[in-house]
């Protein structure tokens, strides 16, 4: 099907009449609306000051469905008429083409006039960046008499047609002067409505563009004539009706698109792109294709992209991961080259915690393969428990430090990994490294003192990487061999007066389920699972015990006097019950 949408009146008579009416209306406007107090050399007086004319920049478009030259490529042509815009040399405007809706923008674009330099950049999937049509003024006050045209391949569904697009007007330094949306209807001001009415009454010129079929009624301001054969919604403000057969759509595409869906070609390209994983220096960790976070225009063709990436870790957990990137293309320049990932779990894919920045010349497609990553994993203490500054830590807690890489266990000793009590003396402890050498414990020979400040030290000066000479950067300050110290305080064990803790340890019975007939009966209230239940299988010989909390009871009931403060973990130690020494003790 060949058709067109007209978005602007063709007659300059309309605008000429509009200007005349504007002058008349301005002359008739109430004086108060234009009055202002002005300062003159002779003093202050009132004068009538004409308000600055509000010139509205309008990008009106007409879009025509052309005969397809390549099967499967839905070819259209945009034609833009710009009004209300005044440019000086090196200023310009850019119209953007959504990467999910357009492809294969006509390049080079058709000549307009000698006042403009034209440029086209294709939509870039790798950058997730839209294509654009750029017109740069080569002189002051360039002529907008000629329309700006561009052919594109439309990727929309069979029920949609190309519509309005975002545009920006930029200054000579490429900062944004103004921005908006192209439109295919006149601005709804009263003046414009009057003018359009006069214009429509005086102008009934039917135009047909060679290669295009006919002009839509809606585009001419005529109410659309709906037919049941083909009604195509062209967007928010345009309805196109055509009774002729719709241009055939490949069967594979007919049900594929929905809204802003991509073409099969684009989808396949995206799929292949996502399959690409960039080579990395570290054989285990792999950094995937970057994703654009923000986009900023720098020059006419160069845009700056703040990007992030995902990292895939097919191996064991890795800590404090970062990467630096370089580019092998002069069209892609790295601005900020470091990307942080932090800790990456085993067999996981994680987002970067930071971003990196590059500038890319949009005259060529962005190729992620030009980015070369070097993944860094420093040898540091990646985590520790208790955490620095922790309070009310149990007195039997065993401090544990985690390493970002496997440590040489033989280099861990009481001189480089230890804890000190409040008196400054080292606490007797055994160092227990993990079997995979990714962490190590301090097993204290005795519980720590209650309500005391403890300090753990990890001195990287003599702690080495497994199988290597690298020293531990314990403090993670970029200095191998640095020292880490952190403090925590233990919970108070001071008895609390008039405080008891009660409990009775019972057996759930042969069915292994609590509160069933083989282990309990309802009490006087005849309700199960209430306080007066009768437990049939209390375990004999159990004694309630917690250090410093009271004498153990000789009976089944465990009782502790002078229990500690709130919210403490307790331990019900049942294994000993089989040996008649069950206890209730504080962790």
């Amino acid at each position, binding site marked *: 099907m060949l058709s067109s949408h007209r978005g602007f009146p063709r007659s300059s008579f309309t605008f000429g009449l509009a200007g005349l009416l504007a002058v008349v209306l301005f002359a008739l406007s109430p004086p108060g609306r234009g009055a202002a107090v002005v300062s003159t050399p002779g003093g202050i007086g009132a004068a009538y000051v004409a308000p600055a004319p509000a010139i509205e920049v309008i990008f009106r478009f007409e879009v025509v469905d052309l005969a397809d030259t390549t099967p499967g490529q839905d070819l259209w042509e945009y034609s833009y008429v710009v009004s209300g815009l005044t440019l000086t040399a090196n200023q310009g405007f850019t119209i953007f083409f959504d990467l999910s809706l357009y492809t294969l923008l006509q390049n080079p674009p058709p000549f307009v006039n000698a006042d403009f330099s034209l440029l086209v950049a294709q939509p870039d999937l790798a950058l997730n960046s839209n294509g654009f049509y750029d017109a740069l003024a080569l002189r002051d006050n360039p002529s907008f008499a000629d329309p700006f045209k561009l052919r594109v391949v439309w990727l929309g569904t069979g029920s949609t047609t190309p519509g309005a697009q975002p545009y920006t007007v930029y200054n000579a330094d490429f900062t944004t002067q103004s921005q908006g949306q192209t439109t295919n209807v006149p601005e709804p001001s009263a003046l414009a409505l009057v003018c359009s009415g006069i214009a429509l009454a005086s102008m009934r010129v039917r135009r047909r563009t060679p290669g295009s079929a006919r002009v839509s009624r809606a585009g001419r301001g005529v109410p659309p004539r709906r037919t049941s054969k083909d009604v195509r919604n062209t967007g928010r403000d345009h309805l196109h009706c055509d009774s002729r057969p719709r241009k055939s759509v490949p069967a594979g595409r007919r049900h594929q698109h929905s809204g802003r869906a991509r073409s099969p070609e684009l989808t396949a390209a995206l799929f292949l792109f996502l399959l690409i994983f960039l080579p990395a220096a570290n054989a285990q960790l792999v950094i995937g294709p970057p994703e654009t976070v923000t986009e900023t225009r720098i020059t006419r063709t160069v845009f700056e992209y703040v990007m992030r990436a995902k990292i895939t870790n097919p191996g064991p957990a890795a800590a404090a991961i970062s990467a630096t990137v370089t580019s092998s293309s002069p069209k892609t320049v790295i601005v900020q080259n470091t990307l942080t990932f932090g800790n990456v779990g085993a067999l996981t894919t994680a987002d970067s915690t930071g971003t990196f920045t590059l500038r890319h010349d949009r005259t060529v497609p962005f190729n992620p393969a030009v980015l070369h990553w070097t993944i860094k994993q420093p040898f540091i203490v990646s985590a520790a428990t208790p955490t620095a500054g922790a309070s009310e830590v149990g007195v039997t807690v065993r401090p544990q430090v985690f390493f970002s890489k496997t440590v040489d*266990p033989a280099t861990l000793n009481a001189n480089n990994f230890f804890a000190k009590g409040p008196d400054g003396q080292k606490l007797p402890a*055994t*160092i*227990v*490294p*993990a*079997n*995979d050498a990714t962490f190590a*414990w301090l*097993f204290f020979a005795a519980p720590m003192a209650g309500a005391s400040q403890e300090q753990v030290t990890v001195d990287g000066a003599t702690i080495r990487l497994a199988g290597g000479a690298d020293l531990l950067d314990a403090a993670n300050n970029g200095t191998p061999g640095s020292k880490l110290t952190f403090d925590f305080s233990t919970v108070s064990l001071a008895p*609390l*007066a*008039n*405080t*008891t*803790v*009660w*409990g*009775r*340890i*019972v*057996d*759930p*019975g*042969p069915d*292994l*389920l*609590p509160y069933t007939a083989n282990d*309990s009966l309802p*009490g006087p209230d005849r309700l199960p699972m209430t*306080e*007066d*239940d*009768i*437990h*049939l*299988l*209390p*375990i*004999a*010989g159990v004694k309630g015990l917690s250090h410093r909390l009271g004498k153990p009871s000789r009976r*089944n*009931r*465990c009782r502790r006097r002078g*229990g500690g*403060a*709130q*919210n*403490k*973990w*307790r*331990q*019900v*130690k*049942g*294994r000993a019950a*089989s040996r008649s020494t*069950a206890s*209730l003790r504080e*962790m």
Partner: protein
Amino acid sequence: MAAPPRPPPGGYYFPEMVMDATMQPGLNNFVMKGMESIYLPRIPASILQNVSASQTTMVTLKPEAALDLPPAQQPFLTVEIQPGSLVNNGQHVASNSGILKPDPFHFRVAQTAVSLIRFSFPKKR
């Protein structure tokens, strides 16, 4: 109320449990809030399996420890223990690192009623 205590049944094992309890100073507290009794899971001692300090041990769920898990699903509940990766109650690690000599080690996999261990999990603060 309770019946007279009696010795724990032979051949069973009552595992060590850790629980989250809140105590109010200056009051008589129950370990289980509002309840005097603390149930411990009754586990057959026969399900205990030795863990090797030198090679990987696969601990499986034995039928007598499967509370209501269908037999067809029981073989899929396993725990793989790498040599030297366990720390025992005596603060020694079953390790081949050469620093500490591992103690004899046991491990078990058993299914337990949720109501028995619910109190072991930290409460939402």
